[in-house]
């Protein structure tokens, strides 16, 4: 009993095949336009692929082109819940009636569906909001109510399409920890840009790019050993590609990167990855020591938490604000990024 899904959407250049086990939460990540939302909408029944097949717990959701006529289950008959970026609470119904809408639409009595709604509102810590109208809720409150509404239908599959993207920094953590609790043991697909969501909520990560799945695997593995540039950037890692040879990676421009082989089969194509925090910035190349040194020009500086991230080409370094001032770092300044070989992980692509 699992979800299998494959679909081709020519108009959006999407060709995807994926599998989700019961109780598994999968994070779908990727740059804008990668086709993440197309996957979600096809599963919800809001967007029809050109061809494909989706089966949820033995029930076909769609089969296109099917044994004539096409099989296409309408959204209301799928048992697939959806929580989008916007809460989209029905503005003319109270919070309670919003949450009761699903059970009621599925044939429950008014009383039973309201009871269920109260249960789910309690579950998302929003019981006291029951009598309010959506217009009287904050963004975070509304999204919690929307979550309760989606859960109240007990969907066999819950789709979360960037559920935290529209929330402010104060509301997102609370919803995230809430999701961590309710998604445990629940089959869900969460589209997100935030690596924190993937870390906290997902068992597995699927990385999409250009309408294809480019990488997939357990969350921890993908983030520590990213195979795609996008996954690496997600993990906040610097990634260089080239040809592997023992403990060095030869880059196409002839430069060599020394590192620690992380094992794994494949090659000779390989990746070198290292976190920005491992990078030191110098105005002149340091002499001696087995270190990797890259001559770069600073593109931009951006504050990140307690430090400043210095971006230069494809690389990034994290330094203190004091260091920035001391070195006189500014866009256009030529500097040297230096990283110890011990901090660089090499693995086959």
């Amino acid at each position, binding site marked *: 009993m699992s979800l299998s899904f494959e679909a081709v959407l020519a108009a959006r250049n999407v060709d995807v095949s994926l599998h989700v086990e019961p109780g598994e939460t999968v994070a779908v990540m990727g740059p804008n336009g990668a086709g993440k939302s197309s996957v979600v909408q096809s599963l919800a*029944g809001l967007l029809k692929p050109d061809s494909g097949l989706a089966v949820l717990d033995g029930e076909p959701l769609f089969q296109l082109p099917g044994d004539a006529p096409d099989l296409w289950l309408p959204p*209301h008959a*799928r048992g697939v819940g959806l929580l989008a970026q916007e809460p*989209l609470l*029905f503005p003319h119904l109270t919070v309670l009636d919003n949450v009761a809408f699903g059970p009621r*639409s599925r044939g429950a009595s008014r009383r039973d569906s309201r009871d269920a709604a109260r249960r789910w509102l309690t579950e998302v810590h929003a019981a006291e909001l029951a009598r309010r*109208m959506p217009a009287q809720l904050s*963004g975070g409150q509304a999204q919690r109510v929307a979550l309760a509404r989606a859960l109240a239908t007990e969907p066999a599959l819950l789709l979360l399409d960037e559920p935290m993207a529209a929330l402010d920094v104060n509301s997102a953590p609370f919803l995230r920890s809430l999701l961590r609790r309710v998604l445990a043991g629940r089959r869900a697909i969460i589209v997100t840009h935030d690596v924190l969501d993937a870390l906290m909520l997902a068992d597995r990560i699927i990385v999409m790019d250009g309408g294809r799945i480019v990488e997939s695997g357990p969350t921890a593995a993908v983030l520590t050993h990213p195979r795609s540039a996008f996954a690496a950037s997600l993990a906040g890692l610097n990634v260089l590609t080239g040809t592997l040879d023992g403990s060095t990676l030869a880059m196409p421009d002839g430069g060599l990167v020394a590192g620690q082989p992380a094992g794994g089969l494949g090659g000779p194509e390989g990746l070198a990855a290292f976190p920005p925090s491992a990078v030191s910035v110098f105005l002149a190349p340091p002499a001696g020591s087995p270190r990797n040194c890259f001559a770069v020009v600073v593109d931009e500086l951006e504050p990140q938490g307690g430090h400043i991230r210095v971006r230069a080409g494809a690389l990034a370094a994290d330094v203190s604000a004091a260091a920035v001032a001391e070195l006189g770092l500014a866009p256009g300044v030529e500097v040297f990024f230096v990283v110890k070989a011990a901090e660089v992980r090499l693995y086959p692509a």
Partner: protein
Amino acid sequence: MRDAGAHPNARAAASRTTRPGDGRTRGGTRRRPWQYTGVPAWIYVVAALGALFILLPLAGMVAQVQWGQFWELVSSDSSVAALLLSLRTAAASTVLCIVFGVPLALLLARGQFFGQRILRALILLPLVVPPVVGGLALLYTFGRQGLIGRSLELAGISIAFSTTAVVMAQTFVALPFLVLSLEGTLRTAGQKYEAVAATLGARPGTVLRRITLPLVLPGLISGAVLAFARSLGEFGATLTFAGSLEGVTRTMPLEIYLQRETSPEAAVALSFLLIAVAVVVVAVTYRVPKSPLRALAAGRTSGPAGEVTP
């Protein structure tokens, strides 16, 4: 004029949610602060001219009303009959406009089918053709010698010269107003709520009844009001298709036209009455609806409010 923020419910909503320590800065501010609008000053001048262009002729007509005999003039049997007939037929045609206009607007706003644009253009035709032409078209369709009328006549149904014909003529000219108004509201509202409702297990019928229609109710009401007002003023199509007989087909506009022949004072008095009725109807019904969508937008202007963390 149509400020969602001024809506009593919206204000009540705002103040109710404002509690000490709630993190909300909103609520309690009755006067809206000055906001930049980007409207050049000369716009006000031209707009004032435009408004005068509408209002002055009305004032000119009101000045002609002989108030001393007003009641006497408008309470003649034929005037009362015309007014009652007008109200009755306009109400009936408004109902017809809703019955046919809602599905049409839904199809135009939501449907995905070939010829949608052409269908819209055709449905809006009554807005551009002179009503007399509309009346002729109806005559050639539902008249005794008409396309469909011929068969109806054989079945013993005769439409011309009946009150039914008046209602049909009014519906013909008023329908586009409702369709246009509702289609616009439907497009503005978008389909997101409907999609969410579907994923929650609601069948299309349920979505229409519980989500779509409540959300676009303001647009539907304003469209219906426009249709009613247009029906009330219908003259050309009625005259051509339905004829003019007191109590049966002679509506207010026809009565006004006829009164003008013998008693211009009565015509002016009736005109004033008709305008007054239309103004009252529009004023009363236009005030009631406030879009729930707008209330939502208004509630959110303060930005994300303090999260109640348990």
